[in-house]
């Protein structure tokens, strides 16, 4: 059960059966679904690449270009951890794929580990890279807040993929998939969806901003945010931050960039005192120009930043203020 079927293709890779569980919100597929699909196609190496969709998302199946088959499970559009898991489990048990890809997201966390136990497959968290290496898969995981990369292998697995690890475009391109309706059992109903709660309307929608000045734990305390706020105003930029700042209540949730915050795409992203944990990087690494200021020269943020300075952010803010005025 733990060994892959060895079918060799012309290129010398072993064909594989890869299944992607898509994610959607408010009637749209999340980018992670396309990212996983694009990579799944490559990993399948000529084998089968299928995608699971729920509810009315079957009507959007044509967007899932890279999939051979789309398995429509039906059910509600509202995500329900137990229901979505039960339905997926059935299908996966009968499909018996070599690799299951699930997003490393809020929804993915309710699905992947549970599937792994129920299917008796290893679970690989925080994947930023996956390769098909013949008789098994190779995974690269980001661990310890991004301070370590761990490479592992398994012939079969459930992998949780970090957003932004692969190209979304590749997932959208390709032929048209066949849609199969599958009857699925949505479980015992011990979890009931009640309602979707929208966030409070924010003054500023930072996902639309051109220029962002973001603060992280390096700011030290709430009052110093004023200094950064002034800088943002002078640069005609909007203010953003990482999760700890919002947890501490120093800035509203609408400013949070990252996995549990917002995904932003500005022309210029200035990161002050942000270390660059994967969860934050997810939210901003697609910015056109990233400038990072952090006193720790080993901070992971410098890996995604285009420009950097290992200086104290207050010194920089101050000197910038002086130069600009």
């Amino acid at each position: 059960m733990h060994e892959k079927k060895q079918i060799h293709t012309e290129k010398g890779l072993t064909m594989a059966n890869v299944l992607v569980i898509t994610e959607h919100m408010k009637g749209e597929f999340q980018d992670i679904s396309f990212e996983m699909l694009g990579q799944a196609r490559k990993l399948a190496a000529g084998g089968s690449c299928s995608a699971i969709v729920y509810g009315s998302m079957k009507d959007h199946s044509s967007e899932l270009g890279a999939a051979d088959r789309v398995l429509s499970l039906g059910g509600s559009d509202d995500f329900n951890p137990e229901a979505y898991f039960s339905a997926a489990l059935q299908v996966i048990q009968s499909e018996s794929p070599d690799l299951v890809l699930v997003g490393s997201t809020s929804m993915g966390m309710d699905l992947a580990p549970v599937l792994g136990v129920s299917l008796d497959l290893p679970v690989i968290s925080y994947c930023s890279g996956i390769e098909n290496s013949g008789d098994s898969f190779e995974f690269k995981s980001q661990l310890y807040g991004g301070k370590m990369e761990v490479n592992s292998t398994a012939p079969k697995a459930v992998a949780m993929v970090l957003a932004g690890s692969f190209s979304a475009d590749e997932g959208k391109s390709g032929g048209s998939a066949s849609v199969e309706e599958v009857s699925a059992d949505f479980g015992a109903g011990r979890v009931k969806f009640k309602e979707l709660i929208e966030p409070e309307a924010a003054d500023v929608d930072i996902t639309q901003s051109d220029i962002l000045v973001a603060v992280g734990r390096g700011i030290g305390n709430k009052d110093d945010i004023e200094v950064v706020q002034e800088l943002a105003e002078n640069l005609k930029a909007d203010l953003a931050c990482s999760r700890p700042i919002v947890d501490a209540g120093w800035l509203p949730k609408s400013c949070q960039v990252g996995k549990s915050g917002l995904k932003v795409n500005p022309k210029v992203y200035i990161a002050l005192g942000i270390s660059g944990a994967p969860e934050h990087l997810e939210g901003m690494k697609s910015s056109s120009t990233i400038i990072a200021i952090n006193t720790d020269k080993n901070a992971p943020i410098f890996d995604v930043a285009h420009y950097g300075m290992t200086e104290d952010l207050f010194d920089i803010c101050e000197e910038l203020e002086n130069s600009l005025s």
Partner: protein
Amino acid sequence: MKIAVLLKQVPDLAEELEVDDSGKALDTEYIKFRLNEYDEHALEEAVSLKEAGQASEVAAIALDGEEVDKALFTAMAKGADKAIKIIGAEAEGSRAVASLFAEAVGTEYDLIMTGVQSVDDREGMMGPMLSSMLKVPCVSVVTRVEGGDSSITVHKEYFGGLMSAFDVQMPAVLGIQAARQTPRYAPVSKVRQIQESASIEEISLNGVSDTVKSEVTSMAPPTKTGGAKMLGSVDELVELLKEKGVA
């Protein structure tokens, strides 16, 4: 309802982390360990539920390990009614840990709360895996819990402040993202007081049989992928900003 809070010590990320001689694991000889940040939130939420009269008992459970006693006494100082330490068993990786907890927790508790994730759970999130082993439902990334008699209501967070509310029948497992308030401080004198007056229960387990594993081939700090161009002065920065049309 009776709540079990599952705690785990993890390497303190303030430390400089190094790989050991095998090249596959963290060198833990000199680094300090601390309680998983999210487990702290789980404990805080559990104690808050008790203080709101929605829970009758909170038990803190942890595997034996580095500074675990202190973490358990601290949990009691924060309001947990009892502390249980699982001894005699080795568990490497979040999946093995989940198996041990599954055995220790059994059917005694209505609600099992733990941190949504930890910095070292490469083998999957412990809470959901535990729920699967216990065959009870699980909701992760929870930011709010309201108690009830046989079921509870939780808020699950997605992104950007968007969330769903769910009614969950107990027994159930919750992966906590954030408690209703910042985890409270446990004064050292109170912890010391508890160390003198209370004791930690010990459960002896045999350890887990072969669990399904992926094989680690290497561990290393991330390779710098080209990296940032370091600027030498604020003047250079101003130039750059002007170039990009910002200043």
